């Protein structure tokens, strides 16, 4: 299992309707990306960070998940700080600092909003509802099958890697590449084997092409939706400077 998925399955917001959480987290994400970065990034990102704490998502899970995207943000912000006045000549550009800070701020805020959604909403709750957005059922079912199988395959990769490490499979570059090919090969064989077993199992149960699964029913909380709408409205007003005449 992945740490974010574990947090989503075990957190106190597990029983909330996914649409509520999508409205809140993705609404904040849209505010962070689409509204003027200052102050919307601070407001949206700050609200998402507070809500992550309210949803009791362990900070270590959030920080670990944020490592790779933050590395990308840090690396790709460097070129914004320099300009190229002539080919193969770089110069520090003071005007690049506000752009770099704005871009990094927007990205960090949006990432916090994304983490609020992923750390509180299991994918298994989202996938069966995607066809309501107009996505063809065949595509959502392939996505659901992918989701069902990927944990086993990633687990297989880890198990094979551990076994290879125990046999000194990563001692040299040559053995490392041979071991990596072994991992990919094992996963390919296992994926097809799994698909065949699933096919046989479904065939004996009279499979006709429809993979209907039971979806846990969650009621939409009106107070939660009202509070979310108020929060998003407040961020929009504060960010655009629109003041109500009343």
């Amino acid at each position, binding site marked *: 299992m992945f740490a974010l998925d574990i947090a989503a399955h075990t957190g106190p917001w597990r029983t909330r309707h996914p649409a509520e959480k999508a409205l809140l987290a993705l609404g904040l994400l849209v505010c962070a990306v689409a509204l003027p970065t200052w102050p919307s990034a601070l407001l949206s990102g700050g609200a998402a960070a507070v809500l992550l704490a309210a949803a009791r998502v362990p900070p270590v899970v959030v920080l670990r998940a944020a490592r790779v995207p933050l590395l990308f*943000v840090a690396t790709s912000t460097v070129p914004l700080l320099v300009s*190229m006045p*002539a080919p193969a000549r770089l110069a520090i550009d003071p005007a690049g600092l506000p752009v770099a800070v704005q871009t990094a701020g*927007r990205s960090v805020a949006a990432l916090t909003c994304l983490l609020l959604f992923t750390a509180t909403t299991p994918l298994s709750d989202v996938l069966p509802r995607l066809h309501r957005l107009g996505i063809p059922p065949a595509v959502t079912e*392939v996505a659901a099958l992918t989701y069902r199988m990927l944990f086993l395959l990633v687990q297989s990769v880890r198990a094979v890697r551990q076994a290879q490490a125990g046999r000194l499979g990563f001692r040299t570059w040559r053995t490392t590449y041979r071991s990596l090919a072994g991992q990919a090969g094992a996963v390919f064989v296992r994926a097809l084997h799994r698909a065949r077993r699933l096919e046989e199992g479904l065939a004996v149960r009279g499979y006709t*092409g429809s993979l209907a699964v039971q979806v846990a029913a969650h009621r939409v909380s009106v107070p939660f939706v009202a509070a979310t709408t108020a929060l998003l409205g407040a961020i929009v007003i504060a960010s655009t400077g629109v003041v109500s005449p009343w």
Partner: protein
Amino acid sequence: MHIAEGYLPPEQAAAWFVVSAPFVVHGSRALVRQVRADPDSKLLLGAAGAFTFALSALKIPSVTGSSSHPTGTGLGAVLFRPPVMSVLGGIVLLFQALLLAHGGLSTLGANVFSMAIVGPWVAYGSYTMVRRVGGGLDPAVFAAATLGSLATYSVTVAQLALAFPDPMSGIVGALAKFGGIFAVTQIPLAISEGLLTVLVVRLLGRTSGDDLRRLGLLRPAAEVRA
């Protein structure tokens, strides 16, 4: 190389969704037709998606001392063809965003375009071209995986350069800046992915020859004898 959540300005993020949409819709229609004709193929496609995701769990050593994971676009395109890869790649990128926070929802259109559309098409085109001029399976697979990975990297660099042109030298300068900073890791990684994919296909040829024949990667035994 996934563009992180919120990194692109909103207009550009939206524009990449518009650019990617026709390819994903075309791929979805192909997938729906395939599933309608053969309902069991849904299970194979699910397995293919999970396999592509699992490839991102492999850790390729990098010359910089760190490690990175393969894009898997070359192998995926050669095994499952680019139209299907546009949908499977889209699903995998969505899962990577939602399960690992790699990439993002606002940048999904841009990442789909580089990793699920351009990468697989370049990979498949390179594979077909090498095979047509009489190249063997190994060089064709190496070209597919390496050029697919390089194409993905180049498109990502172009997306960043379009979003943040250099104040003095414009988009050309920005291409050089972003290209230079990521080339250190991405070019060796593309070559590594090419070598690794050749080893994977060789291994699968020995252990899963029938599966590769069914997917059209190896010729049927009778044809080989003829």
